[in-house]
């Protein structure tokens, strides 16, 4: 089994499949752990799969006011989430054929496009809460954008490229790369970006039903049936993609396959999901330690993330990072 050698494009499709099929599992484990921390039994680990399967069997209801944008939004977003795993190191240390077709900026653009079409679809529905969610998501998305840019600057300064594979290789290369302040600051800033982008506490209660505090969740309130299934699935995939970038590019790019052997790639799949679940555990702990920020306090949170990213770049320029 360990001697079967896979073709590069085979591994590439395995990357997409890992994200596609593993994402609901990671999300299920996280919400199960969260329930445990709160003294509940928590939903079953496989619950997200059941939810998605159930929604695919339901009918789609569309309001009179909405147009084709409402229906195509979820599909385009899902396609975007299927594209990003080709650009980032999900399973291998070596770049795959399509790995160089887009840098971090390119991946960021595709993720932003997905966020944009979902917000647009929500706004198209004409429902006030979905519109509110769409407008809020775009507002906070715009505010977090400078932070993401400075994280990319820091990465670009450290590796002199902006390819995710290059940074992962740089981090793996030596211990002094791990402790250099600009890397730690950029990683910490990106961690806060992941908190904001996946809609977790302290920015948003991701499992709540109170519309006033909603940002990302509110966008999808009007969708139903298969469209909603795609949106939910897409949300878990976005979460796993961001986790993967945080883990395999910034924090712990170990356990990736260095060869094309089936065994090594299979091991890398398990390692990625295990690392993502550990990160999910951390997020569940954060969920229980902090309370949700007031909506107008979120700018302060984003300002702190921005501070970390800017300091990362500044320390590099000062010559010590």
């Amino acid at each position, binding site marked *: 089994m360990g001697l079967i050698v896979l073709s590069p494009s085979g591994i590439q499709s395995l990357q997409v499949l890992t994200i596609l099929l593993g994402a609901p599992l990671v999300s299920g484990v996280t919400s199960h752990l969260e329930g445990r921390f709160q003294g509940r039994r928590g939903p079953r680990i496989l619950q997200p799969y059941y939810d998605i399967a159930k929604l695919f069997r339901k009918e789609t209801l569309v309001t009179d006011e909405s147009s084709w944008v409402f229906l195509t939004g979820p599909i385009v977003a899902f396609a975007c989430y299927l594209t990003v795993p080709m650009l980032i190191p999900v399973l291998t240390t070596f770049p795959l054929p399509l790995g160089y077709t887009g840098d971090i900026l390119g991946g960021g653009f595709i993720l932003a496009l997905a966020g944009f079409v979902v917000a647009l679809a929500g706004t198209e529905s004409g429902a006030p809460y979905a519109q509110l969610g769409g407008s809020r998501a775009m507002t906070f998305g715009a505010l977090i954008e400078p932070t993401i840019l400075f994280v990319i600057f820091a990465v670009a300064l450290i590796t002199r490229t902006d390819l995710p594979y290059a940074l992962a290789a740089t981090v793996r290369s030596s211990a002094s790369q791990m402790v250099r302040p600009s890397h730690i600051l950029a990683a910490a800033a990106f961690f806060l970006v992941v908190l904001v982008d996946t809609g977790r506490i302290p920015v948003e209660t991701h499992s709540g039903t109170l519309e006033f505090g909603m940002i990302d969740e509110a966008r999808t309130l009007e969708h139903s049936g298969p469209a909603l299934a795609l949106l939910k699935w897409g949300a878990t995939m976005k979460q796993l993609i961001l986790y993967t970038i945080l883990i395999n590019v910034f924090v712990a790019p170990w356990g990736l396959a260095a060869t094309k052997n089936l065994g090594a790639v299979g091991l890398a799949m398990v390692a990625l999901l295990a690392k993502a679940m550990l990160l999910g555990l951390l997020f569940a702990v954060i969920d229980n330690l902090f309370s949700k920020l007031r909506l107008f306090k979120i700018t302060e949170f984003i*300002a702190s993330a921005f501070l970390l990213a800017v300091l990362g770049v500044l320390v590099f320029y000062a010559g010590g990072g």
Partner: protein
Amino acid sequence: MYHVPSTYQGVTAGMAVLVLLSEFAMLRAPLLRSQVRLYAFQSLVVSGLAAFVAASKHIDELYVLAGLSLMLKVILVPGLVLRLLRDADTDLAGSSVIGTASAILIAIGVSAFGFFAIGSLHVSSVSLPTSALAIACAVVLVAFVLIILRTDVVSQAIGFFSLENGVSVASLVVASGLPLIVDVAFLFDLLVAVVVFGVIMRVHHMRNETLSTTELDRLRG
């Protein structure tokens, strides 16, 4: 400029960054008590940095400095200020005209100025990376921002004390073999400031029942 820093340089610069980050956290902290605790934490990092430099570069005087600043700045001064705070029943720091997010953005701008100013000096040091000097300069500048924006005596005192922390980091960079007596003189300077600010807090609160600096002109004899 584009060399990879050694692990030693990375760790020391990282600790200096931690000092700067706690300065920023003080700018964000709404409670006076948490501000004092942040100062204690910052001083702990500074004395840890001194001990780390002492251990790696074999400069024995720095151990004394680390011990002294641990006793004074981590235990004694914060304890004293917390005690004064317990007597004055004020919890919240005097908020400034500017919101927290804008204050942080201003401080980022100011510290960027500090970074570029030091960067153009081309100072090099044997004990610490140059970036630590730039960070120390940023700490001093952000402490100024804290003193300027906050309108209560405690924040201003803490801003002044943490400014001294920035100077300590700078002195570790520029002259880690600085005669011990000079460093100790620095610390006694701090003690004088503590006494002065302590008296102000005490008297101001006793006479006017407030810690706000906007009422400071009511202290006329």
